């Protein structure tokens, strides 16, 4: 019997702009089973080729169809320790789902999320080797690498600079898109695998890489891309001009949206302009909206070129966030606080190296938007802290240079995720972490 594509319930836009609760409720049991039963169980599952974590998708979906949710989760955990996170933030439409031959394609990520949310994550008993590994950073790359190494029997210690684990999953991605309860739940599962997470440990300051190498057999650096870029235009240091990182960290990590219950403040503004077109820009805009602001996103290219995930852009549109495409800021105005932003219209010309059209300013097309808050979300660079304190080969953007084996210029020191590539996606970081774990294991075994 054919059944229709299952769509999960979502919080209505007019309601959700007043709270930080999750937008998508995920599948009910009935929906998950129906969706799983639509899977054709192909002999050669192409979806699995599209999964950077290498999950046995066909098998876990079959378990859901059979109502064996614990087995479904067990199958996923064999390859991916972060299913609740991936089920929410993986761009499945460009990976597993894209390769699915069912029409419409199976909502694999939603099924992964369902399994994560509806079964208990049971940590296996692992026989420990005597080798020790230090992982720096507890974001997606660090968590993926440490959990895989723990499963291989290594003793793993993760050093996290902030007071909470999770990296960008905790300070960057808002609650309504990725609840912090899920992040902590998956971090706790990884702890149960034997991974020790040390918070408030700023490597490069508290301990040097050289000191870690005396205590550990290998070091994996996964400190991410947390350095906010600024525009370099006039007025950028006026009050109420935030980097997206600051705005998101205040709200996500420090819970400023619950001020004054939580002590960290954030400015509430009537009108916010967000500059940028990526997921971070969209996240910041949606947070500002929930704090009661009217929000306009300005982006120098058109809707089509926006690097943000389509689903999130649609959610933002539903929430009444205005988009002003083909516009670039030239000056932020105000005396003490921001009172507006001057922009210029852009037109798209020939393709650049990334295959996107280059935006060029249109002479004489300047215009002004009145606003009292500006959020700069034009990208982040690799965290420079470690590169400054040890003689590692780094690139132009101060990213750590690694070979195809995630090996840095120092023996037994590996690196992966955004610290090597600049700002990319959560799933790319997870994939790096997993691959690096495998390579570290091979290298240490070879000696």
């Amino acid at each position, binding site marked *: 019997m054919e059944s229709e594509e299952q769509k999960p319930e979502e919080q209505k836009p007019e309601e959700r702009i007043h709270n930080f609760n999750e937008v998508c409720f995920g599948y009910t049991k009935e929906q998950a089973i129906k969706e799983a039963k639509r899977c054709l169980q192909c002999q050669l599952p192409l979806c699995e080729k599209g999964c950077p974590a290498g999950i046995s998708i066909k098998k876990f979906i079959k378990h859901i169809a059979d109502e064996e949710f614990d087995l479904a989760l067990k199958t996923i955990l064999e390859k991916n320790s972060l299913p609740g996170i991936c089920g929410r933030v993986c761009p499945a439409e460009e990976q597993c789902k894209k390769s699915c031959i069912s029409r419409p394609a199976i909502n694999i990520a939603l099924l992964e999320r369902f399994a994560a949310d509806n079964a208990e994550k049971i940590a296996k008993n692992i026989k420990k080797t005597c080798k020790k590994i230090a992982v720096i950073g507890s974001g997606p790359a660090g968590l993926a690498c440490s959990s895989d190494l723990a499963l291989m029997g290594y003793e793993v210690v993760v050093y996290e600079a902030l*007071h909470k684990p999770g990296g960008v999953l905790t300070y960057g991605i808002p609650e309504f898109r990725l609840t912090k309860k899920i992040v902590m739940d998956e971090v706790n599962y990884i702890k149960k695998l034997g991974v020790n997470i040390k918070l408030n440990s700023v490597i490069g300051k508290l301990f040097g890489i050289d000191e870690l190498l005396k205590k550990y057999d290998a070091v994996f650096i996964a400190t991410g891309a947390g350095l906010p870029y600024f525009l370099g235009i006039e007025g950028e240091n006026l009050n109420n001009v935030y980097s997206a990182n600051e705005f998101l960290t205040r709200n996500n990590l*420090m819970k400023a949206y619950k001020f004054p219950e939580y*002590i960290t403040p954030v400015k509430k503004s009537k009108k916010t302009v967000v500059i940028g077109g990526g997921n971070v820009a969209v996240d910041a805009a949606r947070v500002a909206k929930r704090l009661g602001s009217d929000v306009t996103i300005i982006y120098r290219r058109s809707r089509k070129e926006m690097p943000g995930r389509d689903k999130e852009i649609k959610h933002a549109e539903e929430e009444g966030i205005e988009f002003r495409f083909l516009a670039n800021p030239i000056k932020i105005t105000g005396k003490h606080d921001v009172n507006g932003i001057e922009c210029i219209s852009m037109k798209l010309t020939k393709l650049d190296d990334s295959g996107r059209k280059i935006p060029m300013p249109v002479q004489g097309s300047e215009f002004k938007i009145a606003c009292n808050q500006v959020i700069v979300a034009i990208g982040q660079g690799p965290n420079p802290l470690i590169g400054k304190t040890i003689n590692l080969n780094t690139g132009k953007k101060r990213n750590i240079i690694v070979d195809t084996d995630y090996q840095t210029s120092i023996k037994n020191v590996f690196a992966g995720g955004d610290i090597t590539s600049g700002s990319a996606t959560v799933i790319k970081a997870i994939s790096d972490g997993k691959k690096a774990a495998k390579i570290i294991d091979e290298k240490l075994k070879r000696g």
Partner: protein
Amino acid sequence: MYKIREKKVLAEKTVMMKIIAPDIAKKAKPGNFVMLRIDEKGERIPLTIADHDLKTITIIFLVVGRTTEDLSKLDEGDYVLDVAGPLGNPIEIKNYGTVVFVAGGLGIAAIYPQLKSLKGSNKIISIIGAKTKELLFLVDEIKENSDETIICTDDGSYGKKGFVTDALKELIEQEQINHIITIGPTIMMKAVSDITKDKNIKTTASINSIMVDGIGMCGSCRVHVNNKIRFACVDGPEFNAHQIDWDELIKRNSKYKEEEHECMYSKDK
């Protein structure tokens, strides 16, 4: 969790705490700071490491807002949830010749480890000031570690009557000065910078911007230095005073005045 081993009220609204943090203590250098969070709902605040031994770091703070007030109510044996550090760049320890420290208010705590590290190889002259005698602290410690100490109070209740800047102007006329380090309220540091710029005396200032993470990830503490955006947390907190955009810094540091008020008020309710 980090235990408060010792607590002492040094002056009106000025509290000293020794916190057990051996790993941080081992690495602490003059000029470093820590980020501290009291509890789950707390904010992260930067505090200069005023001293350290093998086991503890010493912080000295002025009760100015919600977090410092809450912190001041903790006692010996109590814990704070998070302390991260040592952060920021330490000061350069070298032979300058004659070094003058100009500190006001809480800045007195911040110059203390610095002058200790520079004494011996330099002639140290300290100018410290506060509104009144009751607000002064660490006077003996500063005197002990300086070749010469000038104390100023606005009301003349201790030492010279007047501002530290008045004492500095006088001193510049009498003494050949090679280097000046100023730490204190931003307005005071700006005034010091203006004086020494005219006299062409190299001056560094340790700025106290508003921070969130303290590790270079948000840019809340940014300020223009020599026309470039610099983060106080990772590029500073010490900069060439003559290159700092002081007006911008003063403006940025007043950003959350209203919220600070709301926060205190909400607590009383």
